[in-house]
């Protein structure tokens, strides 16, 4: 696949990920010898355009958070390339990363756990300003107030502590903090998962408003497929460390190509009893295999309702059956000639250059 294959060929994307791998070593025995690796992210490629929201969905443990954290270089990645505004950060050391950190931020799932309980809201929001700017005290205070206004928090609460806020308000604090340094790119890792249904919409609308206002680009990680349909422009579906399908929102939800995406979407119950009575749900058998020991061939072959003999031997390559709509599945591989022992497609399915 070419460099531009995962994008829609418009101007240079803000974020370009190529063949990203993040493997965690598994140690065992008294000598703690390395006996294997959890392949949490195992060859992921995609682009995110400026001002766009890319949704990243998939079952628990498929590697969504690891992928988001690796892109922000919260890990030393195993291999691959991460470019932000054309600037390669995949290989940089932490010192070189530091001045680049303000451009890329993260909003976490659990607003409770991600905020220091002993710090006031003002200090939490102001902390990145202390670390990365030389603003005066008064300037900092003004900036903190400005941020609180932007996320809809009452300025009078600046000296309160996180536990004095509701879940939705705590998430606003986390968002204000992420915005402090005027980032261009924000990884939102399940930002609404811990919130009540009636509060989720408030936070999602806020994220959309902030995106319009500050021209933000989001990687929106979620297992809530309905909410991703609402917020994302394009969607990447992950399974067992890989992106198996990537498409514009309407194309993905309207006509999913990969059997896993089809099963995932059909499993979401719709809040409509008449529709539910007539809908057929694809019920997948069994659980996701361990990322320490992924199956041979297609990652999904152990659960796929449409698996064919070839699927157990050969890893399907990412294809583009429709313009801008990518899927890695032999069903969408018109010219694959199944030959026993073929390794051509086996190693690096996401690299064709």
């Amino acid at each position, binding site marked *: 696949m070419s460099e531009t294959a995962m994008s829609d060929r418009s101007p240079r994307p803000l974020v370009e990920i190529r063949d990203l791998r993040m493997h965690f070593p598994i140690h065992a025995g008294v000598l703690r010898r390395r006996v294997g690796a959890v392949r949490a992210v195992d060859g992921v490629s995609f682009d995110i355009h400026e001002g766009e929201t890319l949704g990243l969905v998939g079952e628990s443990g498929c590697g969504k958070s690891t992928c988001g954290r690796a892109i922000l270089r919260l890990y030393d990645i195993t291999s691959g390339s991460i470019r932000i505004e054309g600037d390669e950060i995949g290989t940089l050391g932490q010192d070189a990363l530091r001045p680049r950190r303000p451009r890329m931020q993260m909003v976490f799932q659990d607003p409770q756990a991600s905020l220091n309980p002993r710090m006031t809201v003002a200090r939490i929001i102001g902390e990145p300003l202390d670390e990365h700017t030389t603003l005066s005290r008064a300037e900092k205070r003004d900036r903190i107030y400005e941020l609180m206004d932007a996320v809809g928090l009452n300025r009078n609460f600046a000296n309160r502590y996180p536990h004095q806020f509701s879940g939705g308000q705590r998430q606003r604090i986390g968002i204000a903090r992420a915005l402090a340094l005027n980032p261009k790119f924000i990884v939102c890792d399940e930002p609404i998962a811990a919130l009540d249904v009636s509060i989720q919409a408030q936070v999602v609308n806020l994220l959309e408003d902030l995106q319009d206002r500050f021209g933000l680009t989001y990687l929106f990680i979620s297992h809530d497929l309905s909410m991703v349909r609402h917020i994302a422009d394009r969607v990447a579906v992950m399974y067992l460390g890989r992106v198996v399908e990537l498409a514009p929102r309407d194309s993905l939800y309207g006509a999913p190509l990969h059997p896993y995406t089809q099963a995932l979407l059909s499993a979401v119950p719709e809040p409509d009893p008449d529709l*539910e009575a007539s809908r057929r749900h694809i019920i997948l058998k069994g659980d996701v295999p361990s990322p320490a020991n992924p199956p041979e061939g297609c990652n999904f072959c152990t659960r796929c309702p449409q698996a064919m003999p070839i699927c157990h031997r050969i890893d399907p390559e990412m294809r583009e059956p429709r313009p801008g709509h990518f899927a890695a599945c032999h069903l969408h591989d018109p010219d694959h000639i199944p030959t026993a022992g073929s390794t051509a497609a086996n190693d690096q399915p996401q690299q064709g250059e």
Partner: protein
Amino acid sequence: MPDGASPILEVQGLQTVFRTRGGDIHAVNSVDFHLQPGELLGVVGESGSGKSVTMMSLIGLLPSPPAEVRAGTVRFGGDDLLRMPARQLRDIRGARIGFVFQDPMTSLNPVFPVGFQIMEPLRKHMGLDRAAARRRAQELLELVGIPDAARRLGDFPHQFSGGMRQRVMIAMALACDPEVLIADEPTTALDVTIQAQILELMKDLRERLGMAVIWITHDLGVIAGIADRVMVMYGGQVVEQAPVRALFARPQHPYTRALLQTVPHVTGARAERLKVIEGQPPVLSGPPRACPFRARCAHAFETCARANPARVAVGPDHDAACFWDVDRGAPRHV
């Protein structure tokens, strides 16, 4: 649903308060509901609305202190569960009313094999001997779709995935053929694909075993798929109750309406902007003297601050606790 038959469970005027250092929390206020034989009653509401406390109160599972069930009756068969000796209630709990909770790890004991944990109640409540209990335990694991059941009886909870543990929990709850199954957010912690497996299993089990079920969830999609009747809770109260189709087609309480409008869908039309319910759920620090939803309600008017609306009939087997008639757009005549 066998309508008209007398309810298998009938709750009236249930009131539960937590006495904490920060003051009393009025978690459940005058809750009334009933469960018909064989039906599935869905209970929805946001977190803190009193769903779990209501169900735990019925069956005496709340720690006291701090919990205090202050009032109410819970008719089950000919008895009142709230006025029953603890021993007798324990027997009912193990055998005639089964439970499944959100997090199976908190209810499964990590140090015993699951087979042993399923066999325990069988031996205690049904007087089965070891061999018979073992056979039944294997049968139950097969019933809930655990492959290789005979071998897995010896496995410990951590050796099962989240979805499998929830199946084990369901197997345990069904062990003694309960008349009522109470499931408290049993699929909330699971992936949608695994949730779909469990919901399918549940439909199948109900067809085969015919027990009545109370299914707590905050997911309106789950409710739409499995419930016969729905009860909506808000601020420790039941604010609306209706057959499932009526609830989705003609919601009569402003909270239910707003909730249905706020959730996005995976199919059908897609709104550019999500509708929101402004504000936050109430703090339940005192007995309710006004409508608990008034701070967030688009229709609130003077009366709503002066009194707590009672549930009034708004359709066949359909009631709502609201002073406003959403269809007419005017205060309700009562």
